[in-house]
């Protein structure tokens, strides 16, 4: 076997390299997917369905409105009526009715796109992967730069998700047609179009795993892990709706509360730590002292204790202070009364607690970032007549930001996890919702696996974003 040692990236490919097995397998995969999407994915398609309710209401649905039917019947089902019967008219799948492209065209032209969005995305991923792979191939065979690194990374990631996308589109079909319309599962066994497309995606994956060795970049993108974890959660909900779907419904508003707390706190944390960081590099002993005292004290107290203090002890402190003001003089009594009446909402207390605690940690990151800039930069700025604050703003901070961003991003991920502690303050965050559900049902394993998966998707996703920012700041110079 002949070996060609010249790199396939950046150079025109030699004749032997153009016939590389990985490129040929990739081409085969692309062809299979693009052709298979013309073929029926299932032997039959539902031409129309007639749903009758106990009160006499009947709803007739025609393809492709059926796809929206689950949502439709859930939300617009006549009151005080129950589903009585569904009669379905099946027809053999032809091109526009039941092939991959047919589904896409029909679904994309449907009135309420948002109800079928997840289905479209699942169905589109293999086609997008195939088109990206095709672009990669065309460049490899014709351009003088050979393989493109960016395209390799993109195609690899898409190839990892493509088979999942196909399988998920099938699960959607079962949802729409099987669960709702009570179609026999045997009618929904995929036919040739589906299996050929699936084989095509697997060929893509095989070829791309081989091809990524040509790239200097880190081959495996951890984005795939985010998808995989999300996929596991999705499978649990799909295959065992009892109790996972119920748990998901119960905890999902907790996710939004967790995210809201984290995003709002993070905003304030950035402000506090900018001030704290500047204080820690200040030459004024008073400012330096105050900033250092804050950082040292707060970092020495567990976050849990700080939260409990703010929630339980602070109101008492306000009461005592308020009473003192009221007694001090009548002119202060209204202010004193305001203090006594002041009650933090659990949400505010959580944001304050997280801000104070993480402000101390992130202050240290800001300090380290600012000190990492060579002192000559400050001297040059000052020698030009800039004030200390002008030099900070125009010279030091813009450079420090590049050093600061990655570790601050990591703190964001840590904050996301530590935010689970605010559940002790009666904030209905993700953790708290999980605890409530478990208290009602005693399904500890199922509840906490769902809660853990939710946190994992959030943290893994943020870690990837942080990583992306890191590479951006590293290469720009």
């Amino acid at each position, binding site marked *: 076997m002949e070996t060609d040692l010249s790199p396939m990236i950046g150079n025109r490919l030699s004749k032997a390299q153009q016939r590389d097995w990985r490129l040929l397998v990739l081409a085969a995969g692309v062809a299979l997917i693009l052709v298979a999407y013309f073929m029926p994915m299932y032997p039959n398609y539902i031409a129309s369905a007639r749903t009758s309710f106990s009160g006499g209401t009947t709803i007739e649905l025609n393809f492709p409105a059926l796809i929206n039917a689950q949502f439709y019947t859930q939300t617009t089902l006549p009151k005080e009526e129950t589903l009585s019967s569904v009669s379905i008219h099946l027809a053999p799948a032809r091109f526009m009715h039941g092939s991959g492209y047919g589904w896409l065209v029909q679904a994309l032209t449907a009135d309420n796109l948002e109800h079928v969005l997840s289905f479209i995305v699942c169905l589109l991923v293999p086609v997008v992967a195939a088109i990206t792979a095709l672009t990669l191939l065309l460049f490899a065979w014709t351009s003088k730069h050979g393989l493109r690194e960016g395209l390799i990374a993109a195609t690899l990631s898409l190839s990892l998700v493509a088979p999942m996308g196909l399988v998920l589109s099938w699960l959607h079909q079962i949802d729409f047609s099987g669960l709702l319309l009570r179609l026999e599962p045997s009618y929904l066994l995929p036919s040739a179009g589906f299996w050929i497309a699936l084989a095509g995606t697997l060929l893509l994956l095989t070829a791309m795993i081989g091809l990524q060795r040509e790239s200097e970049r880190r081959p495996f993108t951890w984005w795939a892990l985010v998808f995989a974890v999300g996929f596991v959660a999705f499978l649990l909900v799909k295959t065992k709706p009892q109790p996972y779907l119920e748990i998901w419904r119960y905890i999902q508003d907790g996710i939004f509360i967790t995210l809201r707390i984290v995003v709002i706190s993070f905003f304030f944390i950035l402000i506090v730590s900018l001030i704290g960081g500047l204080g820690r590099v200040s030459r004024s002993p008073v400012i330096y002292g105050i900033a250092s005292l804050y950082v040292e004290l707060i970092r020495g107290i567990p976050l849990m204790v700080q939260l409990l203090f703010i929630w339980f002890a602070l109101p008492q402190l306000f009461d005592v202070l308020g009473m003192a003001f009221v007694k001090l003089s009548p002119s202060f009594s209204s202010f004193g009364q305001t203090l006594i009446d002041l009650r933090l909402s659990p949400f505010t207390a959580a944001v304050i607690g997280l801000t104070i605690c993480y402000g101390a940690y992130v202050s240290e990151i800001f300090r380290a970032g600012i000190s990492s800039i*060579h002192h000559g*930069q400050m001297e*040059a*700025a*000052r*020698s*030009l*007549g800039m*004030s200390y604050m002008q030099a900070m703003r125009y010279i030091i901070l813009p450079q420090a930001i590049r050093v600061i961003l990655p570790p601050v991003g990591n703190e964001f991920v840590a904050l996301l996890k530590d935010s689970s502690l605010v559940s002790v303050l009666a904030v209905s965050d993700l953790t708290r919702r999980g605890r409530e559900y478990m208290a009602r049902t005693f399904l500890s394993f199922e509840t906490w696996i769902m809660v853990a998966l939710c946190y994992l998707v959030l943290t893994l996703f943020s870690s990837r974003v942080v990583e992306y920012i890191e590479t951006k700041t590293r290469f720009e110079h």
Partner: protein
Amino acid sequence: MQALAAEPRAGIIQIRNVSKTFEHGRVVALDDVSLDFFPGQVVVIIGPSGSGKSTLLRCINHLETPDSGIVTVDGVPLSDATNINKVRMEVGMVFQQFNLFPHLTVLDNIILAQRVVRKRTTAEAEAIARDLLVKVGIPEKAEAYPGQISGGQQQRVAIARALAMQPKIMLFDEPTSALDPEMIKEVLDVMLDLARDGMTMVVVSHEMGFTRNAASRVIFMDDGQIIEDTTPQALFSAPKEQRTRDFLSKILH
């Protein structure tokens, strides 16, 4: 001490009994130094490392605060200058390590301080910056970042950046020491032009060619004190002090 200090004009920089120590008094950088610099003079300060040359220079724009003594720049005593930044506008400084701002283009390096300190409009500042880039011979590098140009070019940008503030005095702290040999000339040429234009310059440097050609006065320092203060011709042909002779024999080979 030489007669140069007794010039009739008032010194644009007056240094009176300035002392400075580092590391809690263990290292003496300046030991009761007094001298004047006059408008239009090009003064080169030489001396062994650790003799206090750079510290003296940095006291002039208050990057170092003297432990005792007074530095007066253009009639303003720095110790009671309410706005040190006003004084610094009049005193340009060029550093050994260039200290360009790496996150800004060459043009923005020269524009920034004009805008935020001199309060010029961007268009005004840019016109001045482009003129200065022509003057230092690299107009084509305006859009480059400091990391993309050579050391000599960076130092010329640093000179342009200081000149953009239209200072009355320019300080050079070993401007060619960090440069590769083939780049020293391009920087010295710019400095020579500046000297011919009549700029008041205080230069810490061991470039003897520049000293001979451009300097009107040479100061030899050792151990934080001024040992000799004379003309280049007098210093090279007939150094008075033994320490000066020892030092010159070392650097002139």
